[in-house]
């Protein structure tokens, strides 16, 4: 394999010399021009949780393991891993070729230091909540790491595939420079970051998984997605991340452009607040569930781009949502439930939503408002700036909330924050019962895949029936690209990691 020199010209010259056979590898463009509408908010992989930050940091940092397009766990820094029989010990073998961008090898000591940093409350890493079962970490040699767990914890492996569990150099931790400099072991180096304007990434020649398909990536922040489409039409942008289905659905109409759409784990949901009257009553919540036509919300707000879903959005575990409670709209039943709860005349409530987050929020709220009006519920819509919304949401200060909540590859990691008795976000969910809690605990320690599926299936069925929230639909993650961009593989987590292998044909 001949390394590209970084100059388009030499690539072409070389291709001309060695002939047609090398064209597919050699004629790649030096740089991939990319655009997105929201920029990363910071560089500390342990602290940043925003979607846009993760998308950038995944190109620079690596976790121990990664999820592939089927959400199977595959090697990243670790070559192999193994749970002990009681699921209380997890051992990783590191890839001896793994190297940080400062030239140092990735060692067991770095892994240990990274996880200790995440667990240290002074760091302020939100992902810490997923790793609380780690009792101690052993490093028998430079390429072996053993995690001792205080209790069986199967989902912890999936949690380790997140870039929030990225391995950073122990030296950088000691120097206190994590978040100021980005030194990872991933496919690209971050050469320049001008927040809310642009990023310049160059290929990491030492990347253990290398070589990369392009010599660099230049990311421009174009805040209006309509402008991103315009820039793609004018061939200024090779590859773009899109959020708004209204814009994304225009892409296929362009002959030179291609739209990649991939169902994602995140779910659109109407969160009821069961601590607020009259949503305290089961029958009222169920009535709301029956009165909402989820398909219609999807068809109108997202132009049908997505799929109606129950609480479980992970393909391997998901069940047929039409079997769940009231997933077929039934206004008569809803009215009856309302009457039984003593609210035959309906009631008034306020639904909050974040402006543009997701872009479909206001539209979803309006469709739901019109559907609930049919059973006498008068909804007031209050759209708020994202942070104002988050503040109200975290305080549980709402009657109902339109949300797009992130999904995880493991249902326990995804939902323990809401639907367990000790969940950190119980004050947001405001509903828990013994069935939910015990099913979650059961699923956490279960190692047999079939048993796990059954357990979580039961969990999903019960959750839909007690209706603290009304799960609506999952949508797609969209990327748009010029047709000469090859090799991008979208995944349900929304990661852009496969840009590492993308090539641009001339």
């Amino acid at each position, binding site marked *: 394999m001949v390394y590209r020199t970084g100059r388009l010209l030499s690539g072409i010259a070389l291709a001309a010399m060695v002939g047609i056979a090398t064209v597919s590898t050699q004629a790649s463009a030096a740089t991939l021009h990319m655009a997105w509408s929201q920029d990363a908010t910071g560089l500390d992989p342990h602290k940043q949780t925003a979607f846009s930050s993760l998308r950038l940091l995944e190109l620079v940092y690596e976790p121990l393991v990664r999820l592939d397009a089927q959400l199977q766990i595959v090697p990243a820094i670790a070559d192999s891993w193994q749970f002990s029989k009681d699921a209380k010990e997890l051992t990783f073998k590191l890839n001896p070729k793994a190297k940080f961008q400062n030239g140092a090898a990735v060692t067991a000591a770095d892994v240990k230091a990274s996880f200790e940093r995440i667990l240290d409350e002074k760091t302020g890493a939100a992902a810490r909540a997923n790793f609380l079962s780690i009792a101690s970490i052993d490093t028998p040699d430079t390429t072996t790491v053993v995690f001792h767990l205080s209790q069986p914890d199967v989902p912890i492996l999936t949690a380790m595939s997140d870039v929030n569990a990225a391995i950073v150099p122990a030296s950088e931790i000691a120097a206190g420079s994590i978040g100021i400099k980005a030194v990872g072991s991933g496919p690209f180096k971050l050469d320049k970051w001008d927040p809310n304007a642009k990023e310049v990434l160059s290929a990491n020649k030492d990347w253990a998984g290398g070589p990369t398909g392009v010599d660099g990536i230049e990311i421009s922040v174009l805040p209006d997605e309509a402008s991103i489409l315009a820039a793609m039409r004018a061939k200024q942008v090779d590859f773009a991340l899109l959020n708004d289905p209204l814009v994304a*659905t225009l892409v296929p109409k362009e002959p030179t452009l291609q739209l990649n759409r991939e169902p994602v784990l995140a779910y659109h949901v109407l969160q009821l607040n069961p601590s607020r009257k009259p949503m305290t009553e089961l029958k009222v919540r169920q009535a709301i569930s029956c009165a909402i036509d989820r398909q219609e919300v999807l068809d*109108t707000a997202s132009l049908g781009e997505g799929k109606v879903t129950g609480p479980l959005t992970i393909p391997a575990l998901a069940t047929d949502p039409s079997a769940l409670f009231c997933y077929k709209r039934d206004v008569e039943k809803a009215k009856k439930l309302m009457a039984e709860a003593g609210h035959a005349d309906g009631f008034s409530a306020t639904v909050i939503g974040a402006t543009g987050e997701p872009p479909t929020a*206001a539209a979803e*709220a*309006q*469709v739901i408002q019109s559907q609930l009006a049919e059973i006498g519920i008068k909804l007031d819509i*209050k759209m708020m700036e994202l942070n104002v919304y988050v503040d109200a949401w975290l305080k549980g200060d709402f009657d109902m909330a339109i949300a797009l909540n992130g999904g995880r590859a493991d249902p326990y990691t995804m939902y323990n924050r809401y639907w367990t008795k000790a969940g950190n976000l119980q004050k947001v969910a405001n509903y828990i019962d013994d069935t939910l809690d015990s099913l979650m605990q059961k699923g956490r320690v279960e190692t047999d895949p079939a048993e796990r599926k059954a357990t979580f299936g039961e969990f999903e069925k019960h959750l839909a029936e007690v209706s603290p929230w009304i799960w609506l639909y999952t949508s797609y993650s969209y990327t748009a690209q010029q047709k000469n961009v090859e090799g991008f593989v979208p995944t349900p987590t929304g990661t852009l990691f496969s840009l590492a292998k993308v090539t641009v044909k001339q």
Partner: protein
Amino acid sequence: MRMVRAVFSHGSGRIGGAIVGFYLLVAVLGMVGLTPHDPLAQFRIDRLHAPSAAYWMGTDLFGRDVASRLMVGVGQSFIVAFLSVAFASLAGTVLGLAAAWLGRRWDGIVMRVMDVLLAFPAILLALLIVAVAGPGTWTSVVAIGIVYTPIFTRIVRGPALSLKAREFVDAARTFGSSTHYIVTRHLLLNLVAPLTVQVTLALAWALLTEAGLSFLGLGTQPPAASLGLMLSDSRKLMETAPWLMIFPGLAIMISILGFNLLGDALRDILDPRTRRSPA
């Protein structure tokens, strides 16, 4: 009545008056519910329907009738524009007169506070007000009103100061008129012209600012309609459903045209210096 006749005998006043009158009529029809369809009813089977006999201006993403929403939206936009300009011009006139009349110390205090507001970037001021108070019709009114208050204060204070110094006010004073009388009669009369021009300009601005706030998601709350909200909602559907942008866009343009023409006419009629014979 004399005023109305004067406006209608003025060339551009006639057109402007007719436009504004038409809008007011449309707004009233929208408010009493005389629209072709229910502006909130979602005919979801007819989503994004092009203009037709049933839907004169097409339907939006939800299958709501654009023509009906436009009629209601005109009312909503006019309410925001009128109230915010009323707020700003009233507050500005009172503050400006107070500053000019009370002189030195109060003048200093009022004008420095206005300087603070004026120096503060307008859209940020509106943004912060909306973020603190939560979005909604009244917040928009107050936000736009506060943003324009300093402009009115300045516009009133300047002429008020020079008028205060002019002979005829002194004369009135020597003839024993009360302060109250002097202020209302002479000052206000002489301020009517610059104020009227500013009011019509500000109405146009207010309509546009409301659109800008809606663009940033801070204006009128759905499912209510305002011209600005309809316009900013339309931008992502510009290619799929151009009628969603064209009709509210035209509606905003023509209404502002009407305000401006009317303003020009009023200025001609009221301005004591340029009082030309209405030709």
